[in-house]
């Protein structure tokens, strides 16, 4: 079977990891926010802003590493905004998130047009290059970073006092306050960190997967990450699995199109990752993992 052969080639799995990298960043970021009890629908826009700002910094002469830091800082700033709106002010996390997505996206485009009023094709930078390693390891440094961050996040969440506090504040903020930890700061901090990871996911697309910033280039990846967090039952390890699985579906459909392309409309292939994700969700999800206090605002001194 040709398609089985395909699944065992190294280049397929290289592609899977590459396609999965932005999803890993985004899913991890969203997971951290949600673990702290804050749904962040700003993810799509934060990824745009990360893609744009990181790329712009490099375009203006900063080294690639600095581009990453700029993207993270922009992500953290947007996270701060989302955090202020949803944590101390306790505004609807849905609207604030969608508002942030709209704001971050349109601001990125506006800035882009102000900085490049007359270009007729997207300016380019020199992006990260894949390392010259054999097999699966021919990836850019950012993919390694993504995997590192999964391990780091898992470690922090499950092995450190800070992680315990984050998990607890997503379960019962009153319990956190009763133990002398400031709920507002903790949640805002988690949202900022999570948002900066989302921005990294966006920056991967402009600094690593591609070399230019393009309108609409996030193309729904942020929303996928939201779904992946649920799929992962809010666990970092499973988030990695989910992102890789989704990427594998995607890489697979791109190759399947070549294999049996003519007979089947291409939309069927493009649907595959979404359909399979829903099926996977049905098979493995119970709502068990959902943080109890997710989407429930906590205002100190109110009941």
């Amino acid at each position: 079977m040709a398609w089985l052969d395909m699944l065992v080639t190294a280049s397929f799995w290289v592609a899977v990891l590459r396609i999965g990298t932005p999803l890993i960043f985004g899913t991890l970021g969203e997971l951290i926010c949600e673990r702290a009890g804050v749904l962040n629908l700003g993810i799509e826009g934060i990824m745009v802003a990360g893609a744009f700002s990181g790329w712009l910094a490099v375009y203006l002469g900063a080294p690639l590493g600095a581009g990453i830091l700029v993207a993270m800082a922009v992500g953290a700033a947007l996270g701060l905004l989302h955090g202020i709106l949803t944590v101390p002010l306790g505004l609807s996390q849905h609207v604030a998130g969608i508002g942030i997505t709209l704001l971050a996206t349109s601001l990125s485009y506006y800035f882009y047009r102000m900085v490049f009023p007359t270009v007729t094709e997207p300016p380019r930078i020199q992006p990260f290059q894949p390392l010259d390693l054999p097999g699966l390891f021919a990836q850019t440094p950012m993919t390694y970073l993504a995997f590192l961050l999964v391990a780091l996040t898992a470690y922090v969440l499950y092995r450190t006092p800070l992680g315990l506090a984050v998990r607890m504040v997503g379960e019962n903020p009153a319990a956190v306050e009763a133990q002398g930890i400031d709920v507002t700061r903790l949640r805002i901090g988690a949202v900022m960190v999570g948002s900066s990871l989302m921005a990294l996911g966006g920056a991967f697309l402009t600094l690593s997967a591609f070399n230019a910033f393009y309108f609409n280039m996030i193309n729904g990846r942020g929303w996928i990450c939201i779904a992946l967090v649920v799929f992962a039952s809010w666990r970092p390890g499973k988030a990695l699995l989910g992102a890789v699985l989704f990427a594998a579906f995607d890489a697979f459909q791109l190759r399947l199109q070549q294999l049996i392309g003519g007979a089947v409309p291409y939309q069927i292939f493009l649907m595959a990752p979404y359909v399979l994700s829903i099926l996977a969700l049905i098979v493995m999800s119970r709502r068990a993992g959902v943080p109890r206090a997710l989407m429930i605002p906590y205002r100190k001194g109110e009941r």
Partner: protein
Amino acid sequence: APGAIAQIKPVEGKIKVAAIYTVPVEQQWVSRIHKALNAAKDRGEVEYVYSENVTNTDYERVMREYAQKGNNLIVGEVFGVERAARKVAGDFPGTAFLMGSSFGPAGKNFSVFDNWIQEPSFLTGMIAGTMTKSNVIGMVGGYPIPEVNRLMQAFMDGARETNPNVKFLVSFIGSWFDPPKAKEAAFAQIDRGADVLYAERFGVTDAAKEKGKLAIGNVIDTQAQYPDTIVASALWHMEPTINAALAKVKNGSFTAEDYAQYSTMKFDGASLAPLGTFEGKVPAEIVGKVKAREAEIRDGLFRVNVNDAEPKPTL
């Protein structure tokens, strides 16, 4: 409507031109219109304003707003709003409309154009056919719309002419704006043996470059950025179309017409990009053949077949 013009009259001084694009001006297709209008503006012939990324839901309103403001010529692309656009033109008889459209001209003031660059696409196909060693050519597109299909089909015809054994891979990524995804699709085709890629979308050339394969450009020439990758490109030039329309607006003779011919090689609306860095790398024999075909096309002796059907993979 205060600023609106009652009927088409000769324009004194600068022509006021407004353009409405449904995508950002970086998009290859729209960038050619934008470039031609900017050139006219730089020559001092026109005042040029534009709105980009206008959704089709808003398109009609934007047309009306520009018409009401007294613009002489409105340029754009109405593939998603054909009927509404013609109605707007009917409501503003004094404004000239020049719109990218699949359909014909309408009324007294609604002219159309389209990127009929299948001719150079055919020629790039001829080159691609000889440059492939694996006899597999990959093509990555956004959506299989006629504007895309037509060029891909011509390209395939051209390739088959120089290499009857060539096979094609085709993918559509379901988006106009996802270079990383286009790149992945191209990688997938390279994995399947493609060594020449038809770069309908941004991102494909990057995959070719990264893997040391070749690419064929479309609409714009990006060889400067990819000197070792882009062999040839089929270019579209909007200047002949725009200039013809501007001249008619200027002297008041603008009517409903089809400007398609101005996008052909004969009118310099389309061209094969110079081989540039690949000068000498493409076999001289084939260069000769391409030159000959090009001359035949210009002289009207050879007609590239127009086929709007969705291209299918042949491997």
